[in-house]
């Protein structure tokens, strides 16, 4: 049986879908087979970030209705055949599916794939409940901002109440320069506040936007960019590897940078 992992955040727009797409791709680079489930019925986006939007024929709903087989609904990625997407329906809403049905689909996928990553919608209502129902573990995505961290904390409580104890944190969109200037929470600040283990950090980077524009996840590049390495490292940690955290301060580790940090203490 594969591992069923939900990628969630509470707040919208912090990078859940980007994380799901990149982690899925990164895991296939490590030799794993991966199924991505879009749990955002009515506002599906995972197909776009993967560049697979033109290849969606059936969705999870047709599988549940018996109109097609699971295998027919899965969109296989041509660039990476060990990755498959189970799309959500776009013309319906979150109540089109129940937590039991989500669990049924995820369990079927877990029989065939090493990982099932579920892209959770924002909020804590029915879409959230659907997305976490099948999961054995969770990756919590947040940004170093007050609202995102507060919502993330609420989600930790809900996940624990649902019996999901294995929760790891991804801090997205770190701006090292702002942290240096004491105008942004650092990764350890956020982790200290949320008090859950860290799966990784991702720097704020224009290349993330460019890759979503193109529908080509960052981890597909032959020469990985810094955010690409960040996602790759998170995938390696999921696999149980010990990988040191990315040092985003490296560009500031010049003599002047160190001097300025010394005086800013």
């Amino acid at each position, binding site marked *: 049986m594969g591992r069923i992992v939900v990628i969630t955040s509470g707040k919208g727009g912090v990078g859940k879908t980007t994380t799901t797409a990149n982690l899925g791709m990164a895991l296939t680079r490590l030799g794993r087979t991966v199924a991505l489930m879009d749990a955002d019925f009515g506002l599906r986006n995972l197909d776009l970030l993967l560049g697979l939007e033109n290849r969606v024929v059936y969705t999870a709903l047709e599988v549940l209705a018996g109109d097609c087989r699971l295998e027919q609904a899965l969109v296989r990625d041509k660039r990476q055949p060990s990755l498959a997407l189970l799309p959500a329906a776009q013309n319906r809403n979150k109540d089109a599916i129940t937590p039991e049905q989500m669990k049924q689909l995820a369990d079927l996928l877990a029989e065939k794939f090493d990982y099932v990553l579920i892209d959770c919608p924002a909020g804590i209502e029915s879409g959230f409940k659907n997305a976490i129902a099948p999961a054995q573990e969770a990756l919590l995505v947040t940004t170093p*901002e*007050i609202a995102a961290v507060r919502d993330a904390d*609420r989600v*930790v409580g809900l996940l624990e109440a649902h019996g999901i104890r294995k929760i790891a944190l991804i801090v997205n969109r770190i701006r090292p320069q702002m942290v240096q200037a004491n*105008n942004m*929470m650092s990764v350890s*600040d956020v982790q200290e506040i949320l008090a859950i283990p860290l799966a990784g950090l991702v720097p704020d980077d224009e290349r993330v936007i460019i890759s979503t524009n193109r529908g080509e996840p960052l981890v597909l590049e032959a020469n990985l960019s810094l955010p690409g390495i960040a996602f790759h490292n998170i995938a390696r940690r999921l696999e149980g590897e010990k990988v040191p955290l990315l040092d985003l301060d490296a560009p500031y580790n010049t003599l*002047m940078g160190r001097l*300025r940090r010394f*005086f800013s203490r």
Partner: protein
Amino acid sequence: MSVLTVIQEFLERLFPRSGGSRQDVKRRLQLVLAHDRADLTPEMLEKMRQEIVEVISRYVEFDAEGMEFSLEMDERVTALIANVPIRRVRNEVL
């Protein structure tokens, strides 16, 4: 980065005009999360404060101005912190 800006920033560090917002956001988050996690309404908290004050004042005279009563958190544990400066212990319990 020119030498001039470094000197300028150095001087700003020595004579800070205002600190960064990082400490502000941490402080605000810690406070709001302590309340979120405890799931206590401000009314309940205030009622609890009043009742605790009632009990304490039967035994001691204390400095109501200097009293602190707040929720704080450490790791994922929320604590109710009360700091009551005692002026004098009553000879007889009221």
